């Protein structure tokens, strides 16, 4: 496979390298390291939506800018990727760093009920919309670490081992924390709705 990557540097991608769609993330990134910028486009297609939604769900007003910054950093620091590492985990590590940097620069967050603003629904769905609105507000009231944990585990399709790597803790700790976060979410919802339950 190393030979194939070297071939891409010499500009013979189409004959010697399989199409990008067929490559797993690891090979894609190795091609990027070898100087094939098309690999960045492929990683972008695979992950930009998930990263955009990751930032949006965490209340970032500039989710599109932040998602873009992740890929700029992938190009910039791609050499630091170690083959065999899960690319998805590596990308989320970069995404968390991008967000950390951004939050030090400015704190422009979207209101939580706007992040999850329900689209127009017929009147008989009004109750469900109201429940979603309160749930979104409850999520926004969680401490930052619990909110991020729930977003990573519930929406980003990361398994517990990946989340554990990201957060620097054990898989068992992730499971305990995610259950505690759900409990606190219920409590926040209860307080917001003055006694309501999901």
């Amino acid at each position: 496979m190393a030979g194939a990557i070297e071939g891409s540097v010499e500009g013979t991608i189409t004959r010697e390298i399989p199409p990008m769609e067929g490559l797993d993330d690891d090979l894609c990134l190795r091609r990027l390291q070898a100087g094939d910028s098309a690999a960045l486009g492929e990683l972008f297609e695979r992950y930009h939506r998930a990263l955009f939604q990751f930032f949006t769900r965490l209340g970032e007003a500039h989710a599109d800018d932040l998602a873009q910054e992740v890929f700029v950093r992938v190009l910039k620091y791609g050499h630091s990727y170690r083959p065999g590492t899960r690319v998805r985990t590596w990308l989320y590590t970069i995404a968390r760093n991008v967000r950390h940097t951004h939050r030090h620069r400015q704190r422009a967050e979207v209101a939580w009920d706007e992040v999850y603003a329900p689209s127009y629904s017929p009147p008989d769905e009004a109750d469900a919309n109201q429940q979603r609105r309160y749930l979104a507000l409850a999520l926004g009231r969680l401490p930052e670490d619990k909110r991020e944990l729930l977003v990573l585990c519930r929406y980003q399709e990361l398994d517990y081992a990946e989340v554990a790597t990201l957060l620097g803790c054990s898989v068992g700790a992730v499971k305990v924390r995610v259950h505690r976060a759900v409990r606190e979410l219920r409590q926040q919802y209860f307080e917001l709705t003055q006694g309501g339950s999901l």
Partner: protein
Amino acid sequence: MTACERAAALLPESWRGALPAPDSNWLAAHLAACSDCAADEAAWRALGALTVGEPAPGLRARLGAALAAPPARAAVWPRWRLPLAAAASVLLVALGLAAGWWWRGASLPAAPAAPDTSAQIASLRREVETTQRAVLSLLRQSSPSTRLQGVVDSTNVPSDDGAVRQALLEVLENDPNPNVRLAAIDALARPGADASGALVEAFHYQSSPLVQIALMDHLAGSGAAPARALMHTVSQSRAFVPEVRQRAAWALRQ
């Protein structure tokens, strides 16, 4: 270990669909009997109904443009900070000119004032017109951060400028981003501007409690009949969340 502690340990695995059949069967039976643990399960499922928007279609093209830019510039000035950079440049030039003007005035005999004053007025007028055009342009952009910058810059335009005021009202009533709308409230209600009527009108377009509360804060203490009527209605209506109703009642008492 109690049954609920066992359920707490199993639930995260079941949310991944990775629970072996015996544990899965035990958990199902427990959830049927224990409302507290069943509520955990319900909360996890309810989270799945919270959907968010999609990225803008032009994101890939923007990435290409960002990568094509000189690396140092792209790293130092992310896109959303470009308006800020431009404003800082203008400020620096203005400070330089002012310092030069002061130095000239301090070191040279006073020159006849009238011609320079009229030139200054003409220059200032041009500057205001330029700022107005820039603000109106920024407010029409697709990026929320750019529109936010436009709202902030609008405070450099006199508050009686009809075009900018109208544009700010449209932002307050229609902008999808609550942060932009919140900034528009501040820009419209700055000292010296009579915005009470416009804020009352704009309230009816708002669905975000944050924006509703901000409007109540600005209307607090207003003696205008439409504003007081709105505060009274909101404080009584169950169509609004409790926080908004309470803020309306507070505003009415000011």
